[in-house]
């Protein structure tokens, strides 16, 4: 090649100082300082972990402590003498197809109020929840023969009695004492909380409507954001040329992931409701709005996961004659899937807890029946929590906490499924 390069440096460049004193005092002090720094660092980390664990425990204990009572209700055994009551019903009508209609016209509320006043003295009617007629109606429909005599039916207590019985005090403590003396008080599981929807009386509200709304909304969000996000990531990583336009797209997507969520709500309002005239308050629009928000997260996580697939795998597949599409779908995507799923979990968890953008598209409406489809008006869990926390009635406090527990369980279930899937794909490869 070219002329030989000088191989050794001139001798003048060599150090002439004494050899390092590895056992000297200065060295010892240096080592001691280093160990101290290590210890401090470890303690700081441990303290941080303990602190966050403490916060988490505090949150869980308060939520479960408050919320658990939301799942139970106080019940009153109410004796009703149907035979001598003012009930307006022909027992024969209860067997036909018009049974529901007949019982709705039977003047049940008055009958129940009268029975309560008779059983528990003056003011008895106020101890009974407005939901009592539902229990009585169910009992009659199950056994029409009840109408020929007297029966004791377990009905939910009113908000005040329920709170007083659970130890929250209030004006109804005397009533609770009286009911206890009569032996009519009991505690039962509040099944209605899991099967009913929003209402005006805290003893009657349920979470099912919001839960179903959240389920539908999340399905729309996942169904839109996952495929679009993954395909966008694949295209950008595997096909798109590197130029000013793709740089611009990359910057935009990164910025989009950091945009405050309420902006997405405004976008949804402007485009989906005002421009496309989709139904307001519907899971369809909610899901689409949240998909806008989730998609950038999935694109970013997806691109990173795809980038992390070793190029040697692409070479290997191309080298035996796989087409670019086969390379992507047989090799790159399966290897990137665990990473993509991690991004999806983060995006979906954020979407599930999101309230602000949904308020903008009208999902804060009072919806008393569960949605039957994605275009029906619906509420979602975080919005329901927000609405209940805003209510005046004291009975809503525990319902709010109970709803939070349901939301957390939903989140936990969703994440568990995603983590299960992720691990499955990781094992396979």
């Amino acid at each position, binding site marked *: 090649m070219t002329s030989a390069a000088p191989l050794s440096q001139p001798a003048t460049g060599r150090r002439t100082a004494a050899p390092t004193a590895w056992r000297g005092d200065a060295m010892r002090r240096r080592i001691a300082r280093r160990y101290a720094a290590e210890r401090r660092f470890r303690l700081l980390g441990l303290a941080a972990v303990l602190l966050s664990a403490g916060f988490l425990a505090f949150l869980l204990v308060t939520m479960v402590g408050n919320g658990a009572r939301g799942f139970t209700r106080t019940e009153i055994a109410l004796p009703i003498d149907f035979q001598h009551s003012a009930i307006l019903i022909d027992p024969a009508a209860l067997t036909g197809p018009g049974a529901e209609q007949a019982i709705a016209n039977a003047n049940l509320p008055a009958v129940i109020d009268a029975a309560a006043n008779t059983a528990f003295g003056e003011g008895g009617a106020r101890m009974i929840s407005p939901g009592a007629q539902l229990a009585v109606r169910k009992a009659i429909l199950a056994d029409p023969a009840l109408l020929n005599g007297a029966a004791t039916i377990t009905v939910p207590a009113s908000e005040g009695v329920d709170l007083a019985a659970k130890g929250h005090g209030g004006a109804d403590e005397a009533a609770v004492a009286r009911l206890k003396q009569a032996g009519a008080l009991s505690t039962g599981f509040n099944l209605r909380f899991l099967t009913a929807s929003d209402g005006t009386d805290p003893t009657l509200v349920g979470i099912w409507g919001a839960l179903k709304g959240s389920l539908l909304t999340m399905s729309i969000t996942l169904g839109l954001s996952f495929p679009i996000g993954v395909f966008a990531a694949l295209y950008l990583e595997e096909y798109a040329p590197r130029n000013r336009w793709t740089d611009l797209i990359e910057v935009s997507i990164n910025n989009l992931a950091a945009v405050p969520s309420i902006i997405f709500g405004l976008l949804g309002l402007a485009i989906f409701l005002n421009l496309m005239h989709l139904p307001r308050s519907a899971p369809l629009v909610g899901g689409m709005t949240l998909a806008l928000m989730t998609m950038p997260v999935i694109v970013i996580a997806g691109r990173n996961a795809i980038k992390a697939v070793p190029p040697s*795998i692409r070479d*290997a597949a191309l080298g035996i004659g796989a087409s670019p599409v086969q390379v992507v779908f047989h090799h790159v995507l399966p290897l990137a899937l665990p990473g993509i799923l991690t991004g999806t979990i983060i995006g979906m968890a954020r979407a599930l807890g999101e309230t602000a953008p949904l308020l903008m598209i009208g999902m804060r409406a009072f919806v008393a029946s569960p949605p039957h489809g994605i275009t029906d008006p619906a509420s979602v869990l975080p919005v329901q929590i927000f609405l209940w926390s805003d209510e005046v009635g004291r009975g809503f406090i525990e319902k709010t906490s109970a709803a939070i527990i349901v939301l957390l369980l939903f989140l936990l279930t969703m994440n568990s499924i995603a983590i299960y899937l992720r691990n499955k794909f990781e094992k396979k490869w």
Partner: protein
Amino acid sequence: MVTTPMADMQTPTTKMTAQGVNVFYGEKQAINDVSIAVDLEDVTALIGPSGCGKSTFLRTLNRMNDTVAGARVEGRITLDGEDIYGPDMDVVQLRARVGMVFQKPNPFPKTIYENVAYGPRIHGLAHSKADLDEIVEKALRRAGLWDEVKDRLHESGTALSGGQQQRLCIGRAIAVEPEVILMDEPCSALDPIATARIEELILDLRGNYAIVIVTHNMQQAARVSQRTAFFHLGRLVEHGPTTEIFTNPREERTRDYITGRYG
């Protein structure tokens, strides 16, 4: 500079030819006017110092350079007389006909069986499960790996040792019945014993496939190849029968390189 006329290069057993090939990465020219013929019966070794363009040239032979952004190939490269950069050439089919083994063993993170079966499957070479089993067994036998893995075909290919992985990659390339096999320093990541096994394998495979191997190891080139081409600074300095290159090189640069003056 080699000035041999093409007519002299072509023989009835010529499998691939390159004529006046230039390769550019953006503005930078990596390969300068290379002409060479690859014979069906031979193992052709490409030797030369690091960065001399021998791997780049190898990757033009199955158009793997297509995947590199900014890479541009000029000149004419033929497979059985057909221009592989021509409009009628399907690049996917070309890569099935001209297989490749890479520097670092790169089995798919799938089972051993799936690694070998993947190629035949995407090219529709097997018509039944039994067919595919047969292809896999044949390929693994040829790659000299069958006896070691026949009882654990459904374990991951990445769990094998480095040398076994490389033989698996060779088996994977063989499974699609290529006509030419390109090997890009297939032993540089392997220990001497695994290297010896791969060299044996190359000698076994000779004659069934035209083989082009890039190597840093001149003893290896001397052991496995019949023809050797010496690359330097993107140019083909000299090529001819291996014995001639190693015993009586015409060019001074070749002599300096093979005697270890630089490399």
